[in-house]
């Protein structure tokens, strides 16, 4: 009864909105349709329609996957303080962070699917018992388990909390707090496992580094909170859902620290590769300086580094960081900078040159670009839906019609027994 009402009200929240909202969802749908068409072309003809080849055998799909796992993992930056350390400033943002994690994971799984040609349902072979999951040997098998598990966790926790609020119950801490602890450890693990997928390959000296795991975490905790700041800023200015300035400022501080650590690691990598270059530095040389006429990635990585350094410097200056007009663009710079660093600058140079020294460059085709755009649109679509469902419930605007009391009365009543993060609910802005 309540569940049906929950789903109906969720559907109502998602389908009602002003013109700009419908325009936004409509454009995302249009991009998804084109992406779906591109995927169909790829499914029918094989990956020959992409820019990948026997030399550069992973491209845009795996690059985006690596980046997005980081975005998903970064939810921990809010989950940990909100639930475990009971930081009241983050209480209102944490559900949004979990929404970001869910949509990032949906994108990750789609990118993994898109990377394998044709038939996603071939993946039944990964199911233990009926298939054959090569666990614990294969890092990819680990990754599949971690991504799906994290997806389940990040769906289950917010659903339980939202649904409890919807039916006017207090979420029971005994039920969800253990899951929170698991998800905190899980978040760090998903990104480390993704790093090990690359770092565990001696065949590719560019990835085969002990720094790769930590570097993945540093960049994830840079790009993730940067994205959260942008999203929270948007929600704050476009809805009644208030998010305390302090939450944004704390996130900005976390981003700044992570961005600094990331730059230290970049420096350490540059020194390692170029102070006394060996044959193992060729991929790095290709990435940062190009090899002869092969310079496809050089402008990208240089722009990426400029963005990262620029944004980090801006964020390190307190008055600038505290000014939303500077903070937001700086976060956008960081987000894009890390995408370039990890998306373009990590996966592809690992394949150039090939292990036998041949240089073949990679340029994505329209099919790949559209499939990628389609998956990003899907992710943003999922994120919008999740936020749209969560906000009215958290604002107390929507309650199950089967409650004895009208929702306004319940919302107005003070609740002594709610979890601590709810106590800090500030007065609505304006």
């Amino acid at each position, binding site marked *: 009864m309540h569940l049906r009402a929950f789903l109906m009200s969720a559907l109502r929240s998602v389908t009602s909105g002003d013109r700009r909202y419908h325009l936004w969802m409509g454009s995302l749908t249009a991009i998804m*349709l084109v992406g779906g068409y591109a995927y*169909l072309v790829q499914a*029918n003809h094989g990956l*020959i329609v992409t820019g990948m080849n026997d030399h550069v055998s992973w491209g845009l799909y795996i690059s985006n996957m690596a980046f997005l796992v980081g975005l998903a993992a970064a939810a921990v930056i809010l989950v940990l303080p909100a639930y475990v350390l009971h930081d009241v400033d983050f209480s209102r943002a944490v559900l949004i962070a979990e929404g970001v994690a869910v949509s990032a994971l949906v994108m990750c799984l789609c990118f993994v699917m898109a990377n394998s040609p044709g038939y996603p349902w071939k993946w039944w072979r990964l199911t233990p018992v009926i298939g*054959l999951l090569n666990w614990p*040997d*294969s890092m*990819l098998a680990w990754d599949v388990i971690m991504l799906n598990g994290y997806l389940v966790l990040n769906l289950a926790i917010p659903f339980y909390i939202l649904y409890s609020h919807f039916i006017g119950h207090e979420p029971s801490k005994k039920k969800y707090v253990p899951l929170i602890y698991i998800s905190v450890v899980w978040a760090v693990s998903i990104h480390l496992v993704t790093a090990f997928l690359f770092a565990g390959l001696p065949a590719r000296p560019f990835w085969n580094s002990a720094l790769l795991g930590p570097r993945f975490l540093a960049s994830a905790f840079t790009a993730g909170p940067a994205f959260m700041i942008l999203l929270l800023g948007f929600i704050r200015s476009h809805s009644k859902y208030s998010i305390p300035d302090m939450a944004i400022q704390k996130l900005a501080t976390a981003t700044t620290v992570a961005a600094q650590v990331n730059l230290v690691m970049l420096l350490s990598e540059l020194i390692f590769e170029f102070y006394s270059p060996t044959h193992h530095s060729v991929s790095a040389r290709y990435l940062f300086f190009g090899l002869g006429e092969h310079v496809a990635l050089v402008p990208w990585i240089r722009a990426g580094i400029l963005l990262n350094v620029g944004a980090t410097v801006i964020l390190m200056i307190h008055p600038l960081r505290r000014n939303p007009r500077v903070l937001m663009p700086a976060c956008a710079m960081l987000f894009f900078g890390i995408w370039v660093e990890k998306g373009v600058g990590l996966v592809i140079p*690992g394949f150039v040159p090939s*292990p036998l020294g041949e240089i073949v460059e990679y340029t994505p085709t329209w099919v790949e670009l559209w499939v990628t755009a389609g998956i990003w649109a899907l992710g943003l679509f999922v994120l919008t839906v999740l936020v749209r469902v969560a906000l009215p419930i958290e604002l107390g605007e929507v309650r199950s019609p089967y409650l004895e009391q009208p929702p306004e009365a319940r919302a107005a009543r003070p609740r002594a027994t709610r979890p601590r993060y709810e106590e800090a609910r500030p007065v609505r802005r304006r």
Partner: protein
Amino acid sequence: MSADPAPGLPPGADDGTLLQKPVDRREALGLLLAGVAAGAAAAGACTPLTAATPDERELKLLEWEEFTQKHYRRMTEEERAETVARLERLAKLRYNEDATIATTDAQPGVLFGYAFNISKCKGYRRCVEACINENNLDRHQDTQYIRIFEMENGVVNLEEADATYQHEVPMEGHFYLGAQCFQCANPPCVPVCPVGATWQEPDGIVVIDYNWCVGCRACMAACPYWARRFNWSAPEVPPEEVNPNQHYLGNRHRKKGCVEKCTFCIHRTRQGRLPACAEACPTGARVFGNLLDPDSEIRWVLANKTVFRLKEELATEPRFWYFAD
């Protein structure tokens, strides 16, 4: 662009001309919807009832059975026989090929090894050609398992080598080094596979179950010798050039979306013959044999020549050695 008639697609969904066909918006939407159906059907021909002729119906049924078939290593003897019979019938229906697919196991007391004489190789690439014909390699993508590197005397550096030379050989002041799958004793490509579709046989050959492979290409990223190839599109071999003598783990017809590699010509060597590359070499640069047989030529080379292997520091222990006279 592909010779594979995209079997399993419902009529009209896509006949391989999707890329060339101008598509308007309405049609694109229709195609998208058809795509869902086409995808579902392509997975395993779930709709045998819609097929018109008995042959088509049989094809769809067999394709469904092929899609749901077990991992090769989990099959019983009877299941292997059934699988092979099905694949032979499918080869007939799909490509009009009369293939014989063997499932010969590794012979006891056999461990294959290879040695390559860099002073004898003159870069003719006859081995490459023989390999293409023997292993039914895709002519459309120009798949090759063997790479011959031309290097200047005095330098052993693959980065400065030329693998795509197009001139008269042998070239003055140069030597030639061939590389292919080294069937490492410690193969880095095997553990990374998420579905266990690739493994090492008791005779040392690293093989792939093409039907089980999901095409993630983790093994290609893991191979330090660039020995693995992917079927980016449906492989094309002119029917008159198909080698009908095939092995399940070797040169049988691959489909698009699976990884393949050199198997030391598993269909020949398990019958006591030489790999096609060794047989084709006009200079005698290639020495192949059983490492467990003390009287084999390969053992003689290992005992009497100075040998080296590529990237020894990776501890992959290739069963492929280089030597010079």
